[in-house]
């Protein structure tokens, strides 16, 4: 028997703990005003895009510009994260063995050049990500490793056949990165999307002036009736400090990535009741990664001691006042359905609330390992909040007599040293577009299994737990496996979470209909966003 879903996934509608809306936003969203058409949304993006192609990148600099031009197979329901609904797919079915997914496409989806979207476009786009042709890279190739074949029995049906059960596959289908390109264009030039924009999204591309701005205009043939509301958008490149001034001075209306608490205060002070702020935990965390190949970090006692010395709860409270760092969490986002409770966390080494005891234990472990005079170099990036985190942990370690040299490097050197193992301890970070454990726990498995596992460790027990949860169809049992994984990983401490980030979005209250979520990668196609008239 085949379970039938009509547009809505079986996922329970999850409340979003930790997700709060404040100020004007709350008042307006309850008022449920009718959306108004027209206007140009101006917003800031902090970095220049390296490419226009969402398949070939992982940076928000591309997402925040390209997303409004494209559609995906499925997407997260606006205002109801993480529920999944269809985007170009009208409905879909999942076989009971979870090895076949059949998508029925909307018949009225048009590309900006007027052509109709068919299942062939779906197949070509996914094929490009699964096995990129020469000259094309695929940034998340491993995420598609369980897809065996894509069939297109008719122009409005696409069938995905799986090699194995993949519990995270729905998030892959809804991934904002997996944009649908025109098969015809890809046929002519496989690298077409890298420098051109041609999709089925709510906005058509107008221009991009390098280092300055990116402009989109309403696509009248968009498949969602009456949308988008905006006439267009203008994404302006500027540094974070300039964004604060620009938002305060009403030169722009929004920024979607996030601000520090202090920046939020400055903007809300300037805008008064015209400011609206959103708050959520963020699918982004900093970690302490030890080079497990380098003594003394091949000794679990040393790794654990270094982690024990960090006052995560105290750091969370204080650093949240001056940076984007916030919640204490494990390896999955705190507040997500997969997360451990604070009580469960407190049992992990380095998460206990009694810092005196933690430090005493850390000293004991170091003594046992013969490392009373431990000193090492901490490799770090030279941007915020990495630097803030670095200054904080160095001070924490100093309190138990560990001396640390802070080595701040440029991004290229940071990656190069990761790859070659040219570091002792580093502040690492990890981000994903979904909370699915397979997506996030991959950071903590053996180095030969994942490029992102920077700790250069090998732990087959962790790999086994990882694989078990990835194939587990029962959610409760999967959750249990995630707990086991986290407990084991915390005890081995090959690399340990430091703190999670807090996403604080501040915008002008005129911007309505935008959805907050724990990732800055979704809801950026902007079909539902509209502008309220300026208050007189």
């Amino acid at each position, binding site marked *: 028997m085949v379970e039938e879903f009509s547009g809505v996934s079986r996922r329970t509608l999850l409340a979003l703990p930790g997700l709060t809306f404040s100020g004007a936003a709350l008042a307006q969203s309850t008022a449920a005003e009718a959306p108004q058409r027209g206007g140009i949304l101006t917003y800031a993006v902090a970095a220049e895009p390296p490419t226009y192609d969402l398949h070939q990148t992982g940076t928000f600099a591309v997402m925040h510009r390209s997303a409004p031009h494209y559609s995906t197979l499925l997407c997260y329901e606006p205002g109801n994260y993480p529920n999944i609904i269809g985007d170009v797919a009208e409905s879909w079915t999942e076989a009971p063995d979870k090895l076949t997914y059949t998508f029925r496409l909307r018949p009225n989806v048009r590309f900006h050049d007027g052509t109709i979207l068919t299942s062939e476009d779906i197949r070509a786009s996914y094929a490009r990500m699964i096995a990129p042709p020469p000259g094309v890279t695929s940034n998340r190739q491993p995420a598609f490793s369980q897809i065996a074949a894509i069939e297109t029995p008719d122009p409005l049906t696409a069938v995905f056949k799986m090699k194995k059960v993949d519990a995270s596959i729905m998030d892959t289908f809804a991934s904002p990165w997996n944009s649908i390109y025109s098969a015809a264009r890809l046929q002519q030039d496989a690298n077409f999307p890298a420098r051109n924009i041609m999709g089925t999204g709510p906005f058509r591309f107008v221009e991009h002036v390098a280092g300055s701005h990116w402009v989109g205009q309403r696509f009248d043939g968009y498949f969602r009736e009456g949308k988008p509301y905006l006439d267009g958008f203008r994404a302006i490149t500027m540094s974070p*400090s300039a964004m604060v001034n620009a938002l305060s001075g009403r030169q722009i209306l929004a920024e979607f990535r996030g601000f520090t608490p202090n920046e939020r205060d400055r903007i809300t002070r300037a805008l008064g009741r015209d400011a609206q702020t959103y708050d959520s935990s963020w699918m982004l965390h900093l970690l302490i990664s030890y080079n497990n190949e380098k003594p003394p970090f091949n000794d679990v006692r040393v790794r654990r001691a270094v982690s024990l010395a960090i006052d995560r709860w105290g750091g969370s409270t*204080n650093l949240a006042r001056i940076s984007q760092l916030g919640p204490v969490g494990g390896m999955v986002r705190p507040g997500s359905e997969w997360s451990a409770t604070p009580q469960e966390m407190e049992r992990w080494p380095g998460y206990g609330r009694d810092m005196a005891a933690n430090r005493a234990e850390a000293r004991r472990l170091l003594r046992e390992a013969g490392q009373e005079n431990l000193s090492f170099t901490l490799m770090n990036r*030279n941007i915020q909040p990495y*630097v803030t985190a670095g*200054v*904080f942990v160095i001070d924490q370690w100093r309190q138990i007599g560990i001396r640390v040299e802070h080595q701040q490097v*440029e991004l290229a050197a940071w990656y190069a040293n990761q790859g070659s193992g040219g570091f002792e301890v580093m502040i690492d970070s990890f981000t994903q577009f979904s909370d699915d454990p397979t997506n996030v726990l991959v950071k903590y498995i053996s180095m030969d299994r994942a490029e992102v596992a920077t700790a250069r460790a090998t732990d087959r027990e962790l790999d086994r737990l990882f694989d078990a949860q990835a194939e587990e169809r029962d959610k409760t049992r999967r959750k249990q496996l995630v707990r086991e994984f986290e407990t084991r990983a915390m005890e081995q401490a090959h690399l340990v979470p430091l703190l999670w980030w807090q996403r604080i979005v501040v915008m002008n209250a005129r911007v309505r209909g935008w959805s907050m979520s724990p990732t800055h990668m979704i809801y950026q196609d902007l079909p539902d966003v509209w502008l309220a008239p300026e208050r007189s």
Partner: protein
Amino acid sequence: MSATTLARPRQPNPVLGFIRAQPLGAAGLLVILIMATAAILAEKIAPYDPEAIDFIAMLTAPSMEHPFGTDAFGRDILTRIIYGARTALTIGFLSSFIGCTAGGLLGIASAYFGGRADMIIQRFVDIVLSFPIVVLALVVVAVLGKAAVLGVDMNLVAAIAIPIVPRSCRVVRAAALSVRAMPYIDAARAGGYSSLHIILRHMAPNVLAPYLILLTAYIAQAILLEASLSFLGLGVSEPKPAWGLMLAGDSSNFYQEAPWMILFPGLAISLAVFAFNLFGDSLRDWLDPKFRA
């Protein structure tokens, strides 16, 4: 022309003579001496530990306890400025000394040997001179990465010293050319002394004046450049106290709420560079007869 006789460096006490002839320069020297003392005795003078975080005192305005206020980590800004003097003076002096000495020796060698050696050295000087200073330093830091020897970022020192080399080479070469023309140099050569001996014993002492002027002038430049590089995140690393660093990162985030975070470190940079320039200027006027009244 009675002032001329008074200002002669040959008078019994050169220090007194300098102070009398160049009061501005003497004031500069005084500031330098005060900063140097503060840098050396930082542990004794500074009221707090420069790296200790105190979240309770986070972002407090200047007060009796914290005369210059505190930063986002609650660290005392006065303390960090005092320790920062150590960073600034060490890096400033070391890079200027290394750059001027290397450049000076190259300049003397260039003048002494002349001919092809001179041409090669001058072409090299041209090449390095064609890089804008900040750009060259930026690339050198990126290339060398960061490495500390005895708590000093030697790569940073190198990055700042390299642009100084061709500039001091030019100036010293010009001075050395006139020394080279002196008959006693030929006499020394005829006497069978080695080139090295002649360069070090006969030529170097005679270009000491321009060398000293360059050295002070470039200490000022080096301090400024270190501040710029630290500001760009390519210089000294947190949590080490350095003036340029105190203007970067968090400061740019907080300076509207906590203007003291940028006010005092910026003043410290300006004052130090100002003092060295004042002193260097006056030293030049004093040593160079052309500028004497």
